């Protein structure tokens, strides 16, 4: 059964958290604080969005939506949770909704921006391998895919993903395992 990623965050953050200080500054009327929040998290949020849509323009739109939503709902942000977790949760929920809404519109889009320097043959092989894995990962259910990518590519800890998704650490570990198992079986085919 699919569950939405909306569980509450109960982690207590100390006053020394720079994110909380930025939020406090923003509430005190310092509008540059929101820019600083964007600078801290724009890349991470964009990357998460990119993994769902796999093209630059859509990922940028989604990432912008996430920050606009965050800006609008900042007054409802409970300061005992981490801003990073909160932003990731907004991003994941927004992307999942987007994928659900536009499921029929998605087409294979390949954008290669790899580094130049290796031989053309090696580059091509690397690109093909990446494309191959991208196609396999794409076959995972959206939530399982999100959890896998948050762990492997965004390098969030299992605890952080558990807080974002509102699930237990062991559930997240199992989810990563089953995602990798599924891909392993697809590779074998």
């Amino acid at each position, binding site marked *: 059964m699919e569950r939405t990623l909306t569980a509450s965050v109960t982690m207590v953050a100390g006053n020394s958290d720079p994110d909380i200080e930025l939020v406090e500054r923003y509430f005190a009327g310092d509008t540059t604080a929101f820019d600083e929040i964007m600078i801290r998290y724009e890349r991470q949020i964009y990357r998460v969005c990119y993994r769902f849509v796999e093209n*630059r323009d859509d990922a940028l739109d989604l990432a912008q939506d996430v920050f606009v939503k965050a*800006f609008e709902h900042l007054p409802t942000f409970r300061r005992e949770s981490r801003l990073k977790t909160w932003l990731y949760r907004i991003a994941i929920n927004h992307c999942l909704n987007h994928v659900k809404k536009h499921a029929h519109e998605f087409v294979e889009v390949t954008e290669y921006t790899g*580094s130049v320097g290796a031989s053309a043959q090696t580059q091509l092989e690397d690109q093909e391998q*990446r494309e191959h*894995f991208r196609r396999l990962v794409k076959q995972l259910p959206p939530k399982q895919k999100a959890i*896998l990518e948050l762990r492997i590519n965004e390098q969030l800890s299992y605890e952080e993903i558990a807080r974002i998704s509102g699930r237990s650490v062991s559930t997240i570990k*199992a989810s990563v*395992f089953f995602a990798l198992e599924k891909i392993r079986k697809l590779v074998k085919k």
Partner: protein
Amino acid sequence: MYRNDLDGGPDAKKMLSHLKAKDFVNLMEGIELPAKRRAHLDTCDECRSRWHALESVHAGVSSMDDDIPEPDWVQFRSNVRDRVLSRTIQRETAVRRWTGWAIRPAVAWVLSLLLVVGLTTVAVMWHSGKSSSPATSFLSPVSEPAAEAIEAVPEKALFDDLVQLGDEEQEQLRQILESSQKGSRYQ
């Protein structure tokens, strides 16, 4: 099915000695396994080959990381600011519009109430004026019937009749009146 590794099931007993999902994940994360598990891994080809396969999948998924193009972050922030600003303006306009709609019915109510009160006053004045003195009412129609007017003011009508008598008739009427006055004086 590997789900049995986690939940237990018909094959649980058979799979008991094999590594579980959590063990594989811990291995990929570089977390040391308990001695018993480690000993099993060293002797079990199936678990070892699965671990290596999972590691290669893990590496493959990690390799996708290089492909994400970097956008113009200054432009990105500017777009977010613009959108936030335009939404703030939209929201304020909407609030103002709603406030306007809240005031408009009140104004309409007041105006319609004034209209009703005004019409009622005029109607009441019209009816009361008509019943007390229709001849003097400022709304009195000019086409009042003559017979009704004579009934209302008989002296004037009698005088009008008198004016219309001929000379002989007037003389006779005067004599009648004088004789009747004399009679009443002697009485």
